[in-house]
């Protein structure tokens, strides 16, 4: 105890105390916080639980009846696919207003997303969440998907799915690492700036072909050497001008300088 008393007035004692306090709080919270209730897979209770989640997390913007307010759109008829995409990729709940809702950390568990989706789907008919077989890249033709992707998607998302800029701070996101289900749902529901690609004009098989193309191309090595992010001639030109031209100028300066 004498050792402790002696160090009590050490300049760093306060810092140590604060750190100990913070760690203790975190550990205690993790140990004592209520765990997530295991949700039953019962449609009626899903809708009920989803409604509670909606009122607590979404109703501030979308309204108590989900009919939309101000800038927040109505959720009646957007379907379960829309909820699964927006909440499942962390775009919703929106963290801050801005040109576009960015992809962030997912705030809900899979069960909670399913409950929210069930509630929103109960408000009006809309596209449902596709099954795992419906989005299986193995059943798609990457070559045909590439042709469809180049005509319909590449102008915004880049030919390799690396994303690109739109106007006023909006952008088409990079598709690397997006799950097949979320890609399928995005085409089906047209989130934010993205238009809708209906199953009528772009069939589920077309969509699977696109998913097959994206999963194939994201794994392929870059045959030309450095891909430079697949951004295209701007990036390559920048490297040529800054790196290659600087090297050439360096050589010219060295040729013309006298030896010491």
């Amino acid at each position, binding site marked *: 105890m004498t050792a402790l008393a002696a160090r009590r007035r050490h300049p760093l004692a306060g810092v140590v105390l604060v750190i100990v306090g913070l760690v203790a709080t975190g550990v205690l919270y993790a140990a004592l916080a209520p765990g997530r209730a295991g949700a039953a897979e019962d449609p009626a209770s899903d809708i009920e639980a989803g409604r509670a989640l909606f009122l607590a997390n979404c109703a501030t913007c979308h309204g108590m009846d989900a009919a939309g307010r101000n800038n927040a759109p109505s959720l009646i008829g957007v379907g379960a696919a829309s909820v699964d995409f927006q909440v499942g990729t962390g775009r919703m709940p929106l963290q801050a207003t801005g040109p576009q809702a960015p992809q962030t950390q997912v705030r809900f568990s899979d069960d909670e997303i399913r409950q929210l989706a069930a509630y929103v789907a109960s408000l009006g008919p809309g596209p449902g969440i596709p099954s795992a077989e419906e989005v299986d890249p193995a059943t798609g033709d990457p070559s045909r998907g590439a*042709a*469809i992707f180049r*005509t*319909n998607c590449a*102008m*915004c998302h880049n030919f390799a799915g690396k994303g690109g800029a*739109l*106007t006023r701070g*909006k952008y088409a996101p990079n598709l690397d690492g997006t799950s097949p289900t979320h890609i399928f749902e995005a085409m089906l529901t*047209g989130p*934010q*700036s*993205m*238009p*809708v*690609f*209906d199953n*009528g*004009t*772009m*069939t589920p098989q*077309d969509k699977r072909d696109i998913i097959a193309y994206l999963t194939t191309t994201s794994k*392929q*090595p*870059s*045959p*030309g*050497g450095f891909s430079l992010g697949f951004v295209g001639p701007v990036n390559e030109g920048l490297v040529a001008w800054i790196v290659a031209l600087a090297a050439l100028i360096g050589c010219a300066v*060295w*040729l013309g300088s*006298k*030896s*010491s």
Partner: protein
Amino acid sequence: MSGHTPAPQSAPGREVVPADADRLLPERFENPGLPVHHARMGDTDPKAAKRAERQVATLFGISALGTLITLVVYFAVKFDTPMSFAEYMTRLRISTEGLGMGLFLALFGIGAGAVHWAKTLMPDEERVEERHLLRGSDADRDAAVTILKEGAAESGLGRRPLIRNSLIGALVLVPLPAVVLLRDLGPLPGDDLSTTMWTAGTRILTDPQGRPIKPADMQIGSIVHIVPEGLDKVPDYLEQKAKAAAILLRLDPADLDPKSQPGAYEGIVAYSKICTHMGCPVALYEQQTHHLLCPCHQSTFDVTQDCKVIFGPAKRPLPQLAITVDADGYLVAKHGFTQAVGPSFWERG
């Protein structure tokens, strides 16, 4: 200088140019001569010379290494066995990068070594070689004039006007084929730029799947890239596609401009996809703002204002393709484009 009125004291620049400036500037600048010769480290220090020698040898060694790398990569990376496309591309990449790097080292090593050798070790004394006079001697000049005069007299151009005039005629005619050959640049475009494969009743197909579209297939906010039916059957497929490519959008009918309503069908409108600025495909569609963006020069068209240009260098709206449905309920063109698609040109009808 004599007629100059002296500028008043307050005139700007008075202090900058002193009155006796012309006395300070010499009539001719003296030749400053060569700068003082500085001996290089290698000239005075045998150790430094030895070090430079080793550096040059190292650079030549790098060149030899580069040559070896080139040869090894050429023979080691094989393409003659059957392999998957991905494997082929991987080997191609290794081969290309290896050959390029090896050849770079081989050539750059020799060049850099030679330059370094010359700069550090070869004699370093300045020598001056005076330029000779440009003017020839008087005797040479007179001889040249005499030769020219003799030649003119011997040709007899002054005495034989027939030869002179026929030569002038031949020289005038010689450039004519060069002008006539311009004809081979091709036939004039005629109305090629004003007509597309879209005519009354042409069925609208999705691009690239080639499926006909029913209005019920499209919900509000959707986009479909479209081509005319029969496009895949024509021999000049790419030329026709470059003119006929269009987009089909469905909006809330209340959002559409009254001008575009006659050509719309239940909120579905079709517009040319070819930018009116430089002909890039205007295909970036922002569903919420209803803006179409051109990726090349950022021209922006507002679908709710009949594709009016709201930003960028394009000068006229995207032409609308009037649409309707046929007896089977599929979307078809009501008639062809009423104005030429693509970049504006001076004869645009």
